[in-house]
């Protein structure tokens, strides 16, 4: 029987297309328009050409925020991914405790960002917070509002607390999908625990781990609410990440032009890195023949 080619199903995508156009494409186009103009409000715009791009590319403030952002993303990925895998490997495989652990692990993921920020903001306070108070009593100087290191540690530990579960759950799902036959074969070969991890579990988890890394990278690269609530970007600019800086520029100073140029470059960096991740992911799948 010959199949007839019918592309009419594409019309079913139209509603989504419209939705994306209104929520993403049109705002993005507007940002591009803003980036080449100057405004003093009142919806009046003046042509500025590439001035804002030049200014932003030469701006130390943007590069500093970018390096802080990359450092932050690198640190949290370096902690959350191995930790998530470790947790997943040690979670019970079946029975009551498996479900119990799953629920327990999902709890942090259910808490809204600003609440997580508030929890840690209070938790870390020296006067009323359990963590801050304890550290203070132990004689460790800890003040996230004044000390750069304390602020970074707080923001990183907070992110690890909030999001390691996601990596763990994804890795757990990857582990669960490995058929028992692999482990039996490994046992027959007297493979060590490390060899089982290195040659069976890790390759089988590669796909979900890439998704986990991609999700965590994107989320951490766009992080705003949590550090904003905890440190407000301080002390000084120590935890002013890209989006915090962007909001300060766009809404605080109402510098729409520079902020638009900034966000386009921000967008391009995210697009590039996501594309690299996506390409690596799809090529891994093809190599495995999935």
């Amino acid at each position: 029987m010959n199949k007839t080619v019918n592309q009419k199903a594409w019309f079913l995508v139209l509603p989504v297309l419209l939705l994306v156009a209104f929520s993403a494409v049109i705002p993005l186009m507007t940002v591009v328009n803003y980036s080449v103009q100057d405004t003093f409000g009142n919806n009046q715009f003046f042509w500025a050409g590439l001035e804002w791009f030049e200014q932003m590319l030469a701006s130390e403030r943007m590069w500093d925020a970018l390096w802080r952002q990359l450092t932050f993303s690198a640190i949290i990925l370096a902690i959350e991914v191995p930790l998530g895998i470790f947790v997943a490997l040690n979670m019970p495989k079946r029975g009551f405790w498996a479900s119990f652990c799953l629920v327990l692990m999902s709890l942090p993921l259910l808490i809204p960002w600003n609440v997580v920020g508030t929890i840690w903001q209070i938790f870390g306070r020296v006067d009323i917070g359990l963590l801050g108070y304890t550290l203070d009593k132990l004689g460790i100087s800890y003040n996230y509002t004044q000390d750069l290191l304390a602020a970074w540690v707080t923001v990183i530990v907070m992110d690890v607390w909030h999001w390691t579960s996601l990596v763990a759950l994804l890795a757990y799902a990857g582990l669960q999908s490995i058929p028992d036959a692999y482990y039996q074969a490994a046992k027959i070969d007297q493979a060590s625990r490390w060899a089982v991890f290195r040659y069976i579990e890790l390759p089988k988890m590669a796909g979900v781990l890439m998704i986990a890394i991609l999700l965590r990278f994107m989320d951490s690269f766009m992080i705003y609410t949590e550090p904003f609530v905890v440190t407000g970007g301080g002390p000084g600019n120590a935890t002013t990440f890209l989006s915090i800086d962007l909001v300060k520029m766009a809404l605080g100073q109402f510098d729409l032009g520079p902020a638009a140029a900034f966000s386009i470059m921000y967008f391009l960096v995210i697009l590039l890195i996501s594309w690299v991740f996506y390409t690596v992911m799809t090529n891994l799948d093809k190599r495995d023949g999935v």
Partner: protein
Amino acid sequence: MAWMAWTTPTAIFFLVIAALLITFTILAIKFPETPRVGILRIETTRGDRLFITLLGSAFINLIWLGLEVGPQPYALLACLVYAAAVFRWV
């Protein structure tokens, strides 16, 4: 549309992008894409190569502007060379 603060250059910019997308869609319908592996050792279709070209061109323009290589329109020439290279070898 006034709230979108349109200017002629940005309108031309988006029209060019839209024209490229439409052209490549028509091309994909008339001459179905066959993926191939190029120097990046990844499988790419014609559409993928267009994406790599556009994204790369954005970065070429930014680098050109940031390093003050020369007048900005020349960056477009560099982009054309880059585009030709991507479509030939990637």
